[in-house]
């Protein structure tokens, strides 16, 4: 019924008609229906015939209705009982036929002959039960409904011969033959080569494996490996598809032996067309603890962002993979940007670094430095000053950045209100001293020193610091006194 839908379709068409018997397909449909064992529908069609009240029609319909159906077997009667019932019924059909009851209408006669399971009639109606396996079933239905699977081959040859002149045996047919002979391995082998899509053979083998049908000592390496091999093959064919690769992943998950390794390799090779896709792949890696692959993907995406000068996005990728090395590199790039342009780009990112700031020293510095700027802009000068000093003291800042930090202290020093205590001022002076000494030494070694502008700035700074110190001491002294 499922595979050969012509009968059903024709039936539906005819049922819509007023006078179905006038259509050329009428008898054809009835034959088809009977051959498929769709007795009820056949009866209905027959009942629509104008001559239905005649004897022969009635007899036929009667016979059809009394045909033993195999479904009754499950209700309690055994196969043997069914067999007996069926033989009785068939004998009755035979009798009716011999009594020439249907000789008037050859079509009716054909139907009865089918019911009797007469060999010759099948060749006559072979167009209605094309291809050979349809005929096989039909024949079995009317000649030996309780036939065992292993005995089917008696019928096969006959059926194939009937069609031999018109069609050739195709590859699908050979597979079916092997299936009918229960030659599992042949089926698997042939399916693999015949079908262009590995879906069928992979699933079939999987099912067979799970219900223990694959005899493991027939295969040297165990049934599991064969199943896995086919699954891997199928999954592989999916992985190269631009959207089905996710399905491939689930298949690989079920391959115990090699699945993980294969998956790692494949995931590596999936083109990272978009951030969304990369995120999808990352999730898959993270779910399976594939840290290597996750890191690699983040690196590739991060590098791409760097090349496109999207430092913020790059940083996000490296933070995600906790890549210390690259995070440091990026933090330095940011700092460099600042010292050159006096501005930060991607402020949002730096502001909301949160705990990931701790990934690398540079990054921490960057975060804290930004905090300093924020505090300053919010007017929290004391806090800003403290932070600035802390940064210098903790040596979180790279030496090259000290100048910038110290220069940043300048506006704080020039405020009328005292920001830095005497202690702090001394600290600042110490830092400045250290810096200038180092640079002076450096200058002797490699000729690099401060630019004129820088020197001026530093002078101003020194001045400011030295002005601040007495101010601080005074204020503190006053407080103490009080």
């Amino acid at each position, binding site marked *: 019924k499922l595979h050969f839908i012509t009968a059903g379709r024709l039936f539906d068409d005819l049922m819509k008609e007023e006078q179905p018997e006038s259509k050329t397909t009428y008898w054809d449909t009835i034959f088809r229906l009977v051959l498929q064992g769709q007795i009820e529908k056949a009866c209905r069609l027959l009942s629509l015939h104008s001559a239905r009240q005649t004897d022969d029609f009635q007899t036929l319909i009667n016979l059809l209705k009394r045909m033993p159906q195999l479904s009754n077997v499950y209700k309690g009667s055994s196969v043997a009982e069914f067999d007996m019932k069926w033989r009785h019924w068939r004998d009755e059909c035979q009798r009716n036929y011999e009594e020439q009851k249907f000789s008037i209408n050859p079509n009716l006669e054909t139907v009865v002959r089918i019911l009797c399971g007469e060999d010759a009639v099948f060749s006559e109606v072979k167009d209605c039960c094309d291809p050979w396996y349809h005929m096989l079933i039909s024949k079995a239905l009317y000649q030996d409904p309780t036939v065992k699977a292993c005995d089917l081959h008696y019928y096969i040859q006959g059926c194939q011969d009937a069609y031999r002149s018109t069609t050739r045996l195709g590859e699908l047919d050979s597979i079916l033959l092997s299936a009918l002979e229960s030659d599992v391995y042949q089926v698997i082998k042939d399916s*693999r*080569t015949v079908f262009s899509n590995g879906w069928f053979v992979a699933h079939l083998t999987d099912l067979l494996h799970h219900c223990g049908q694959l005899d493991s000592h027939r295969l040297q390496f165990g049934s599991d490996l064969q199943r896995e091999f086919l699954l891997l093959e199928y999954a592989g064919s999916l992985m190269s598809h631009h959207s089905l690769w996710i399905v491939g992943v689930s298949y690989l998950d079920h391959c115990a032996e090699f699945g993980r390794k294969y998956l790692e390799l494949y995931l590596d090779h999936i083109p990272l067309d978009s951030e969304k896709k990369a995120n999808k792949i990352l999730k898959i890696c993270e779910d399976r603890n594939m840290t290597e692959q996750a890191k*690699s993907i983040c690196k590739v995406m991060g590098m791409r962002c760097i*090349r496109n000068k999207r430092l913020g996005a790059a940083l996000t990728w490296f933070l995600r993979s906790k890549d210390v090395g690259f995070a440091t590199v990026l933090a330095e790039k940011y700092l460099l940007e600042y010292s050159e342009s006096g501005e930060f780009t991607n402020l949002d990112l730096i502001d909301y670094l949160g705990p990931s700031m701790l990934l690398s020293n540079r990054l921490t510095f960057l975060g804290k430095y930004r905090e300093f700027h924020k505090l300053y802009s919010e007017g929290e000068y004391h806090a800003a000053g403290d932070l600035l000093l802390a940064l210098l003291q903790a040596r979180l800042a790279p030496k090259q950045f000290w100048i910038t930090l110290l220069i940043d202290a300048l506006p704080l020093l020039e405020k009328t209100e005292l920001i830095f205590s005497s202690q702090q001022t001394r600290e600042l002076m110490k830092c400045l001293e250290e810096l200038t000494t180092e640079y002076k030494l450096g200058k002797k070694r490699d000729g690099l020193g401060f630019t004129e502008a820088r020197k001026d700035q530093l002078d101003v700074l020194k001045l400011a610091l030295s002005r601040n110190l007495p101010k601080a001491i005074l204020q503190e002294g006053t407080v103490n006194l009080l």
Partner: protein
Amino acid sequence: MFVTKQIESEHKDLIHDVSFDFYGKRMASCSSDQSVKVWDLGEDGEWKCTATWKTHSGSVFRVTWAHPEFGQVLATCSFDRQAAVWEESFGDVGREGVKSNWIKKSILVDSRTAVTDVKFAPKHLGLQLAICCSDGMVRIYECPDVMNISQWSLQHDIQTKFKCSCLSWNSSRMHPPMIAVGSDDNNPSGGGKCQVFEYNDSTRKWTKVETIVAVTDPVHDVAFAPNLGRSYHLLAIASKELKIISLTPLGRDSVIGNQSVVSRFEMKQVASFTDHESPVWRVSWNVTGTVLSSSGDDGCVRLWKANYLGRWKGISILKGDASQTRQDRNFSANPSQNPAGAVRYIQQAPVHNASHLVRH
């Protein structure tokens, strides 16, 4: 089923090498016209040339991509005794048809003869590459700073004592670094034409661990299969025939004597195919190392696969151009297409050149 696509390369001379990038979406071709062309696979499935530039002052023999972790980086090697590293710099990103620029980042000039092959090391070894020359030297360079790929330093040189034509890195992470080098020396008495070298961590030296004596004809290409958790290595060799050799590492307790290196591998010739009936020029593996493709002077690309018992056999033949004068022997398996059995996929045939001549 395969679909062959022909792409007009507009190279003015023989194309020596074609290489796909890691994802199979970009391609680079190099030619005797001294230039390299980079092609991008567009959304429409068509390959467009996005860059073309002169790279050397002699025929460019090979071009290869670095792993995308290092950015968009290419390396080329040439008859002019140099190898060069190139990096893409983006102009306006996102505009259709914008040609990108490739900048020469470094030139490796230590060779005294033509450089015949250049290959990047597997990414877990960092950014390294190896070149081999016709005087038998194999040199390994490293770039310590991934953000600045202009600085390459020579780390090792290996004297192979034969005329090198090709090399391949073993990408396995579970084993020490390994390189196979092949030679196209015509002299049959020269011994095995393929040697395998391994890096010894304790001595910090590359030493020869195997000579594949089974191969005595000139070797045009070698390729290690991606490892995938196997305990043995598979090496494909393209010479007069196509050979697949398996190398199984034995124990590590062999001592390197004064005279000879004790063989530490069990070598087995797993397969040998003469189906091309002519010299095999290039071999290339798919992503999982389960399918091997080879191209030969018969103008065909053949695919080989092993069944689950480890027996190799041919599964497919792709005929290139019907015309006999166009024989493609350069190709590399597109890693994003994973051929498996009779599964349908699209394989792009090697780039045809209007004036591609048969080489003898």
